[in-house]
């Protein structure tokens, strides 16, 4: 671009003017760009304009602003002498990503660790006392127990149901429809899913009609409504009522991966087994399961990570009360409700350490699967 602006073979005066023009342009365009971006920020923060105007401005400003910044910085770099362009341009491309990752992930890891060594206000150094508290405090022990339940039941049943659905769908004639319907809950937020299942778990007094599906079924099968009480009271099994929600959401995920893996089994192998007189059940356990073992482990570990960090469902459904506390709700409560930043940070670090081994294993598998 710079080359096209350069006038060729003119007088010194015009050349100087062109140079000044370029400098002015190179300074003015970025200044205008920054001004527009700043004004947009102020408008969005303080404006009383109608909501849809704010939304429209936010989208245009947010998306356009980032594009504009790249364009401006690239323009500046391309106007430099060629060897400087070559040297600096990669950093225009990669710099923002590295800066943001540094600010939002790398640095906070160190800062959170540092905070975890201090007391609730971040003033007095307490060493590892917060970590000691994590493993001794009653609510934290409850959270660890519950997270263990989440991991065991949540991942196992998601994998089981996913495997069953994938196998059945593979043999039916309405595979696509069935898979779509099972996958559909994955589009729903945890908060929305919480509402859906709260409605199913709703319990009414004995003398009025039940409106919750679960309790209506209980009554229909002859159970006295008054003998049945709110699900939140059945500690610690009330956690299972929450885990069901995540199984409902995650089965679609495991189903899709298993379905793809099952299609990869050579049909000659299955046919050969059938010719040899193997039953469908034998084929399932002796051929299919061993063949897709790698996928099963990947899906299982992915859901383990997922359940380790579970937060929204619990926070919306019970707020962590009635013995349903998990690590992430404890983290939120300590960090943002109790304002105990030292303790909260220590929990975050523990969560991080718990996730690392599974995550590393998973990323390695992920690369082999070439899921993308």
């Amino acid at each position, binding site marked *: *671009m710079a080359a096209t602006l350069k006038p060729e073979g003119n007088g010194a005066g015009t050349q100087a003017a062109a140079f000044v023009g370029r400098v002015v342009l190179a300074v003015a365009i970025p200044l205008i760009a920054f001004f527009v971006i700043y004004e947009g*920020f102020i408008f*969005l*923060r303080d404006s009383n304009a109608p*909501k849809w105007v704010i*939304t429209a401005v*936010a*989208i245009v400003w*947010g*998306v356009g602003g*980032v594009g504009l910044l790249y364009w401006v910085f*690239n323009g500046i770099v*391309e106007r430099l002498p060629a060897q400087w362009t070559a040297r600096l341009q*990669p*950093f225009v491309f*990669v710099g923002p*990503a*590295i800066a*943001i*990752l540094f600010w*939002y992930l*790398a*640095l*906070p*890891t160190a800062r959170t660790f540092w905070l975890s060594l201090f007391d609730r206000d971040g003033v007095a150094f307490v060493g590892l006392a917060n970590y000691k508290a994590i493993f001794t405090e009653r609510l934290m022990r409850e959270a660890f127990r519950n997270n263990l339940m989440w991991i065991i039941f949540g991942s196992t049943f998601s994998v089981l149901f996913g495997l069953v659905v994938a196998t059945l769908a593979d043999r039916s004639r309405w595979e696509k429809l069935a898979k*779509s*319907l*099972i*996958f559909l*809950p994955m*589009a*729903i*937020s*945890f*908060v*929305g899913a919480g*509402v859906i*299942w709260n*409605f199913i778990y*709703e319990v009414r007094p004995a003398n009025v009609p*039940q*409106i919750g599906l679960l309790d*209506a079924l209980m009554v229909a099968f002859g159970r006295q409504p008054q003998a049945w009480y709110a699900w939140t009271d059945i500690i610690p099994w009330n956690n299972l009522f929450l885990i069901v929600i995540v199984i409902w959401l995650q*089965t679609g*995920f495991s189903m899709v991966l298993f379905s793809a893996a099952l299609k990869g089994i050579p049909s000659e192998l299955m046919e050969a087994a059938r010719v040899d007189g193997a039953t469908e059940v034998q084929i399932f356990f002796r051929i299919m399961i061993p063949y897709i073992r790698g996928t099963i482990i990947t899906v299982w570990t*992915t859901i383990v*990570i*997922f359940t380790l960090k579970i937060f*929204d469902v619990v*926070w*919306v459904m019970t707020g962590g009360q009635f013995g349903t506390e998990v690590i992430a709700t404890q983290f939120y409560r300590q960090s*943002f409700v109790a304002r105990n930043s030292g303790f909260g940070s220590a929990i*975050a*670090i523990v*969560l*991080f350490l718990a996730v690392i081994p599974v*995550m590393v294993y998973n*990323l390695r598998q992920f690369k082999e699967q070439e*899921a*993308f």
Partner: protein
Amino acid sequence: MGAKRKRLINDVLVNGGLLFLVLLWTIPTLGLFVSSFRSREDIQTSGWWNVFPHREWQKVSELDPKALGLDPNGVMEVEGAVGTFKEMRDGIETPDGRLITWVGNKRLGRIDVQEQGWAVSWDFDLSNYDQVLSGKDYEYKNPDGTVEVIPGDDMSGAFLNSLAVAVPATVIPILIAAFAAYAFAWMKFPGRRFWFVLVIALLVVPLQIALVPILRDYNTLGLNGTFLGVWLAHTGFGLALATYLLYNYISTLPRETLESAFIDGASHFTVFTRLVMPLSVPALASFAIFQFLWVWNDYLVALVFLGGNPEFKVVTQRLADIVGSRGSDWHLLTAGAFISMILPLTVFFALQRYFVRGLMAGSVKG
């Protein structure tokens, strides 16, 4: 047992089992959907499955106890059913299968005679949506004539906020990640390998670890409770994955295509915008759908970074508020929940293939 018969049994088992599971998975959403169109009283007094044909007691006639000469203090006989006042108030069945119920008190009551009959509860309207979408107060007339004033939930405002959060929070990380992925794949610069490994390593960091320090920075910078703050947060938490996935795609683009463009004198910027971005549309779309859904359905990040600003609450926050403050107002909750789901579900049905690919790829998000 013949092979044909064996196959038939097999077919029934497979399809029956699958149908059972599909129903199990669909009914929760269906119940919510159906309920969101039923009136407040209907939801509170009968299960949503009453929209399907079912048998229920229907009033066929009304009797006046005085005209029949009944004494409420003793044992009475009506249409063949015998019982005291108390029993009659709870309802007694007659020998021919009708239900006798005393309605009202002893002196001024009446007797209803009901028979079992087929019924459907098909009284649907959009008033729940009206109420939950609007930001204005809503007047509700109770059956006894009193008027209740219920504050609106402004779900429409929350919906717009969610859009204002989700669209930029989807596009920004993709743009930044695409630039970075291109640089990692096709540009030479010192420390390229080191930076790339760092990006991959950061995939393992759960976002919880960043919340407290970033919130402190935001308080200092005045970014707390602003859209920009939330966009940047979502960008930060999604960028490592986006860069990794887009790198996997962009680095496999055919070398010759790009090299011929360079020989023609195109700059990196031109090659990136004119060639690499259009060629990467499948990868960009898959990640875009994943990120959009992730942000739209997110609750934690919005709670931490937008929580201080009620004006900018997103749908998940608004819905969680209704759960917290009016958890038994099912007419609001069902409609509200459905509003929060409508956009993800549309995306799901419209772009199913990209959707599945995107969610599969995003499953390792930290």
